[in-house]
C-alpha cells in the first residue's frame, strides 16, 4: 500500500520573499525562492556571502516570517500557525545545527542533548534513554558530564547534532556545520549528516561555503542575490558576459536577459542593465555567449 505521506514533500517553500529596509535602501535578501525537500534527501545551499542563505534558512526553520510566499512543513503552512504553535513545531519537527555550536554553557553534554526534549511536553522521560543512545552513537560517552567549555570544536558540533536529533525531527537545518572545524573534523561531521539523512530518513538542508560537503549532497543549489537555482555538482556551463567579456557559469548566474530569442548571462546587474539599454550594440559586435 503506498504511503499517503510520500506524495507530500516534507518541506515545501513557494515564492519566498524577504525584504530588509525600505525605499531606496530596501534589499531583497530572498527573492522568489521555491524549494521542495523530501525525506532522506541532503540539500546543499551554497552562495556568496550576503546572498541570503541565512535568511532563507531562518525562514525555512520558522524563525523568520517571509514577506511573501508560503512554507509548509509536512503539509502544514507555518503561516497558519500561531507563534506558540510554530515554537512547538520547531521543537518537535526541526533540528538545528549551527556554525557556532550554540550549546548552553551551564548545561553538561547530557543536559544539552536532552534540552529540546524539555520543550516538548511528555517527551522527557523517553528522551533520557535516547539521549544516552545518541551520546554513544556520536562517540561522546566519555564526555557525557562535561561542560561545553571543556569540549573541542568537533565534540561541541557532535553534541549540537545529538541535540538536534533528540526529538527525532524529520528535518535538520544546518548552518555552516563545518565552518569552525578543521578538515578532518569537518569531514566527520559531513559524513555524520549524510548518515543521519540516509539511515534515519531525515531531510537535511545544509547552508555552507565548504566544498567538501558537496560530496554528500543529493542536490546542490546556488543562491545569489536572493535567487535560488539548482546546480549540478562539479558541473559548469561557461558563458561569456556580452558586455564585459567576463566568463560566467550559467549554473550560478543570476543576472539573465533575453534578446532576439537568445538568453544572455551577465557577471553583474550593472552589465545586465547596460545590455538591456542597447542590446544590439553588444550582439552586433559578435560577442555572443
Amino acid at each position, binding site marked *: 500500500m503506498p504511503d499517503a505521506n510520500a506524495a507530500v514533500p516534507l518541506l515545501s517553500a513557494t515564492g519566498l520573499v524577504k525584504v530588509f529596509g525600505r525605499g531606496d535602501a530596501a534589499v531583497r535578501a530572498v527573492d522568489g525562492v521555491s524549494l521542495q525537500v523530501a525525506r532522506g534527501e541532503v540539500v546543499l545551499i551554497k552562495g556568496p556571502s550576503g546572498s541570503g542563505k541565512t535568511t532563507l534558512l531562518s525562514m525555512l526553520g520558522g524563525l523568520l516570517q517571509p514577506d511573501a510566499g508560503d512554507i509548509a512543513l509536512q503539509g502544514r503552512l507555518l503561516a497558519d500557525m500561531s*507563534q506558540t504553535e510554530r*515554537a*512547538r513545531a520547531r*521543537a518537535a519537527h526541526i533540528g538545528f545545527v*549551527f556554525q557556532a555550536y550554540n550549546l*548552553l554553557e*551551564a548545561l553538561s553534554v547530557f*543536559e544539552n542533548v536532552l534540552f529540546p526534549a*524539555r520543550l516538548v511536553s511528555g517527551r522527557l522521560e523517553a528522551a533520557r534513554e535516547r539521549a544516552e543512545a545518541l551520546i554513544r552513537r556520536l562517540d561522546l560517552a566519555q564526555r557525557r558530564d562535561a561542560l561545553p567549555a571543556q569540549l573541542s570544536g568537533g565534540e561541541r558540533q557532535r553534541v549540537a547534532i545529538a541535540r538536534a536529533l533528540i526529538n527525532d525531527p524529520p528535518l535538520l537545518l544546518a548552518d555552516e556545520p563545518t565552518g569552525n572545524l578543521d578538515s578532518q573534523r569537518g569531514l566527520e561531521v559531513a559524513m555524520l549528516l549524510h548518515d543521519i539523512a540516509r539511515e534515519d530518513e531525515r531531510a537535511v538542508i545544509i547552508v555552507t561555503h565548504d566544498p567538501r560537503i558537496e560530496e554528500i549532497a543529493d542536490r546542490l543549489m546556488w543562491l545569489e542575490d536572493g535567487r535560488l537555482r539548482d546546480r549540478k555538482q562539479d558541473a559548469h556551463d561557461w558563458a561569456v558576459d556580452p558586455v564585459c567579456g567576463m566568463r560566467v557559469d550559467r549554473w550560478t548566474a543570476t543576472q539573465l536577459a533575453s534578446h532576439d530569442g537568445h538568453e544572455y548571462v551577465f557577471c553583474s546587474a550593472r552589465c545586465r542593465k547596460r545590455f538591456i539599454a542597447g542590446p544590439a550594440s553588444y550582439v552586433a559586435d559578435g560577442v555572443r555567449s
Partner: protein
Amino acid sequence: MLHWTYKSLLADRFAVLGAAASIALALLLALYLDAVFRGEAAQIAAFLEHSDADVFVLQKGVANLHMSSTRVTENAIAAAGGVDGIARMRRLVYRPALVGPRGGERLAYIVGTGADGDRAWEIEAGAPQPAAGEALLPAPMARQQGLGVGDPVRIKEREFVIGGLTRGTFSMANPLIYITEADARDLFEEGDGADALLVWAQPGTGPAALSGRINAASDDVAALTRAELVTSDTQLALDMGGALVGLMSTIGMLVAALIVAFASYSFVARRMRELAVIKALGATRASMLASAALQTGVIGALGGGFAAAGIVVLDAALALWVPEVAVKPALGITVVLSGVTLLVAELAALVPAWQLLNVDPAEVFNA
C-alpha cells in the same frame, strides 16, 4: 527551560549571592529599625504585661503609662473603689524622675512596688525585691553608668543603693526603676495619693465589665483593662517609629526591588545569545516568561531569606555588643516586606522579561 534557568543561576552563583546579599542589606535596614521599635515597645509594656492586675485606673484623658503623667484624685479613688466586682485595689506610685550622677542623669520611671501584683522584672544580679533605701535598676542602664549591685545611685536628689539589676525593663526612652512603695511616697511627697490604681476583679467579673463600671462611676478617671493598656503603650512606642519605619521600609523595598530587577536584567543581557538559541529550539513565550519569573523569584527569595537570617544574627550580635538596645524581630513583617519586595521586583523585572521575549531567534545563525 526552568532547568536551564536553575543551572544558569547556579553557574552564576556568586553574582546571584551578591545580589541576594545586597537585597538582604537593603531589607535589613528596614527590618532592623522595625525590630528596634518592637523591642522598645515590648520593654515599655513589660511592667503591664507582668502585672496581674485586671484594670488600671488612670487620670481622665490618659491612656498610656509612658510619655505621660497621671494623677488620680481622692474623690476619684473613692468613686472607683465603690463599684461592684472589685476584689482588691492598690494605689500605685509611678512617676518620672532623673536618675544618675549629676551631669549624667537620664529620665526613668520610678515604680513604687507593693508586696505583690506588680513584679515585672527578671533579676540579673542581686536581690529580687527592693528593700528600704534600695533601687532595682535595669542592668543595661547600670552598665551605661558604670554601676553595679551595692553602688549608690541618685534618684531625684536622693541617694539609693542598688539592690539588684533587672532584665527586660529597659527601653531607650523610658527605663523602669523599682523602689519600695514607702520610699516612692517619700521621694515624691505623695502621702496617701495615687498616680494610678491597680484593680483586681472578683471571680466572675470580667476586666472589661469592671473597667466599664469604674468609668461610669467617675468622670475623672480613665479605666483600662490590662490588655487595653498594653496595646495602647505598645502602639505608642510603635507610633513613635511608625513613620520612620514606614519610610525606611519603602526605601529598603525599592532598593531591593531595583537590585532584583538589575540582577535579572544583567542575567538576560549576558545570556541574550543563549536565549536566542533556546527560542530557536522551540521555547514558547510562556516558558520564557516563567524563566524570567523564576530568576527574579530565586534572587528575591534568597534576599528575603538572607534578610530574615540577618536579623536573627544581628539580634544575637547586638544582645552581646549593645545590650541596651532591645531588638524584637517580627517574622510577620519580614515575610510581608519580602513578599512585597518580590512583587515589586517581579514588576520591575518586566523590562528584562520583555527584552527576553523579544530576543530574535534568527540571531543564532550569526556565528
